[in-house]
């Protein structure tokens, strides 16, 4: 009975495709694949915008005494007679962080790939709530527009840092930014709403709509990571929304939640922000870990090493992720006893990350490594994430944090995790799932050049930041030349800036490859990487509704080089019901 219904649904959806107008099919579509692609284009745009802001910052840091070339095209409120103004620099710092976190990396990880992969890898026709899914994209669009528009209002864009520490963020009289800050807060509430709609969909779909045979421990690690990420988003984003609304009230209607003059608590903002913010860090890295696990397994032609350990590590990170937020606040004036508690929980959250790193190495060990571009970026992820994870141990140790807190050491750490981690994995994911999304391959040669240039310039930009951080260069300073202890770092700063320009340029190489391949790339087969998960067992790109017939799953997700299969080195999840195969690790 259920079978008949499911198949009937599939055919009904397939037929429906031909009856939709252009608007319903490509703009206000409820098809998870179209929504994912909408998210992809939007987030790539914001990635470019966020990067551009970083280039301006880097110029200012390297050459604070020189006018910026082409500065004349900016309004006087941003760049006066060729020089970036300090208040505009603060906006650059703030908006670079905000855009990268909220409009580029986070929606690219979950908006694009949770949307695209959850129904396909689980073997279902679409999300649980397709219309809600559409809203989750269309709620983010006004947030993006507000964010961009805020640069051009009186007072400029928000300038209190992406962490928006009150009272600086709450009192326009102290920054000169009123409307820009309020637009930022409205945008963040909208992004929260978008993220909650998305998470709600992802969680419900994973819980209730898996294909027959797709048991919990047969889910690909990507799905596990995205599922746990959705839970983190669901529980963390509303707290930011609540805090953001209170901050907005402080800004606009004269309340004083975070203003001590009215009895408020500045530290309350920090607690609420980081209660969201630390789970957010894992929202930004868990999906990347999932992509990496899967792509490493495909590229090594080996099952993921320690599948179950990987799953438990993800779950462990999610639990611990809610009790470590105070490590962002060691020097904030927080009760020092809390500092002790948070040191311990923070060091323990490093354990699951260590487990994952060793398991990735275990996956490559005795494999048969194929170095296609996605694999290169996945290996790059492991290498760079390891550095980011290790530099985190310095901050977790409270006494050391006294010195390196709010220095460039922190900036180095966060970029090793967010760029070297999340973005490397995203590049891997884009190259890997591009053929499924667009039915064409991206150019391998350009992809490899993109990988090597990114790898080299990324390290040239961000590794020296550990050094200037050790010297003591504070974060978010407009001009470091006035400080005696920062006299020796000018050359390093220039090196980093030149490398940053080169790194940004490699982005254009990628963009060219991306857009060129959409139209001119080599036609992709259904399964160009010889991968096992369900999305590769349907045409590229999949039709509306994904499957004419719902697949039945018989195997764990990453069965490569199975000894029982002789004609090829992979075993799709939905073939050979006769072969026994373990669900996960032993």
């Amino acid at each position: 009975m259920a079978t008949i219904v499911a198949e009937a649904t599939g055919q009904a959806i397939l037929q429906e495709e031909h009856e939709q107008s252009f608007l319903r099919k490509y703009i206000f579509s409820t098809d998870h694949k179209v929504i994912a692609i909408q998210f992809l284009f939007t987030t790539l745009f914001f990635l470019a915008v966020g990067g551009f802001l970083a280039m301006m910052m880097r110029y200012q840091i390297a050459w604070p005494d020189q006018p910026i070339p082409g500065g004349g095209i900016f309004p006087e409120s941003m760049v006066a007679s060729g020089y970036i103004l300090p208040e505009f620099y603060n906006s650059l710092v703030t908006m670079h962080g905000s855009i990268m976190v909220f409009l580029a990396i986070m929606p690219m990880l979950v908006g694009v790939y949770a949307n695209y992969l959850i129904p396909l890898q689980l073997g279902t026709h679409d999300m649980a709530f397709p219309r809600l899914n559409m809203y989750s994209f269309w709620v983010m669009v006004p947030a993006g527009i507000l964010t961009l528009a805020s640069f051009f209002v009186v007072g400029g864009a928000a300038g209190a840092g992406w962490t928006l520490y009150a009272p600086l963020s709450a009192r326009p009289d102290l920054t000169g930014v009123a409307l820009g800050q309020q637009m930022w807060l409205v945008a963040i509430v909208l992004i929260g709403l978008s993220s909650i709609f998305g998470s709600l969909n992802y969680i419900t779909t994973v819980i209730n709509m898996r294909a027959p045979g797709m048991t919990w421990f047969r889910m690909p690690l990507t799905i596990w990571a995205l599922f746990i990420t959705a839970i983190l988003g669901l529980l963390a984003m509303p707290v930011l929304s609540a805090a953001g609304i209170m901050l907005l009230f402080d800004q606009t209607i004269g309340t004083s939640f975070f203003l001590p003059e009215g009895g408020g608590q500045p530290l309350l903002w920090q607690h609420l922000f980081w209660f969201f913010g630390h789970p957010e860090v894992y929202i930004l890295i868990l999906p990347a870990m999932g992509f990496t696990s899967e792509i490493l397994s495909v590229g090594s032609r080996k099952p993921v090493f320690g599948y179950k350990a990987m799953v438990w590590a993800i779950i462990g990170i999610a639990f611990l992720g809610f009790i470590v937020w105070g490590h962002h606040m060691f020097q904030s004036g927080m009760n020092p006893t809390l500092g002790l508690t948070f040191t311990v929980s923070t060091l323990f959250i490093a354990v699951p990350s260590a487990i994952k790193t060793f398991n990735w190495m275990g996956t490559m060990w005795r494999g048969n490594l194929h170095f296609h571009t996605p694999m290169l970026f996945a290996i790059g992820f492991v290498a760079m994430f390891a550095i980011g994870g290790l530099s985190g141990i310095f901050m977790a140790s409270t006494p050391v944090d006294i010195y390196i807190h709010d220095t460039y050491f922190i900036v180095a750490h966060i970029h090793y995790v967010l760029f070297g981690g999340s973005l490397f994995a995203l590049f891997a994911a884009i190259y890997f799932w591009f053929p499924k999304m667009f039915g064409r391959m991206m150019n391998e040669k350009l992809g490899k050049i993109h990988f090597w240039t990114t790898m080299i310039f990324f390290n040239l930009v961000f590794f020296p930041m550990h050094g200037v951080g050790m010297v003591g260069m504070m974060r978010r300073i407009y001009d470091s030349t006035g400080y005696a202890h920062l006299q020796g770092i000018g050359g390093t700063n220039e090196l980093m800036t030149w490398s940053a320009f080169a790194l940004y340029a490699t982005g254009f190489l990628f963009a060219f490859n991306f857009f060129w391949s959409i139209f001119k790339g080599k036609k992709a087969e259904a399964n160009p990487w010889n991968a096992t998960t369900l999305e590769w067992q349907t045409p590229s790109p999949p039709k509306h509704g994904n499957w004419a017939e719902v697949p039945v799953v018989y195997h764990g997700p990453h069965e490569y080089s199975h000894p029982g299969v002789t004609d090829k080195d992979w075993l799709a999840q939905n073939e050979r019901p006769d072969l026994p195969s373990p669900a996960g690790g032993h």
Partner: protein
Amino acid sequence: MAHAATAGRAPERGLDVYTQKVGMWVFLCSEVMFFAGLIGSYVVLRFGAADVWAEPGDVLAIGITAVNTFILICSSVTMVKAFAAAEADDQKGIRNYLLATTLLGALFLGIQVYEYTELVLHAEWQGSHGFTPQAGLYGATFYTMTGFHGFHVLLGVVCLAWATKRAYAGHWGKDNTHGIEVLGLYWHFVDLVWIILFTIVYLI
């Protein structure tokens, strides 16, 4: 049925609960966190500055809000009655109970608006006339928490009005109870939040 020999073709069991209901519960989890942000801030701020809060009854009117609490509780019972009626396929019951729930929700909102007006115009607090969101932490937390609760009630009333309209078109019945149950979950959650708010904002 090519694969009849294998473990059948039904999707994985999931929660053994239909998808819309799972979705609503998941959504309510995020709502819990949203109110936790607001209520948690109130608790923390009040704990840290105990002296800027009035004794119960001094500023906020207990009587009228107790009546309002009663109204919301009644609307919860009419909501479950509507669901029971749907399960029993009692069309008249569905219509009447949904209509009653909608009206009780609207009445709650009306009373809240009246309460706000009275507070802003006539209440006395710390020597000044009128109790507004600008009246220190007390006013700020009060209006934020009850205001967002009221906003949730408003959304609920809109959805209930829509469900009632469909009830008059004979949409709900024994084979179509999910919508009422899911809407009911939201409505009871809003009631539940009010139970907490009434206690910690008005009575403590």
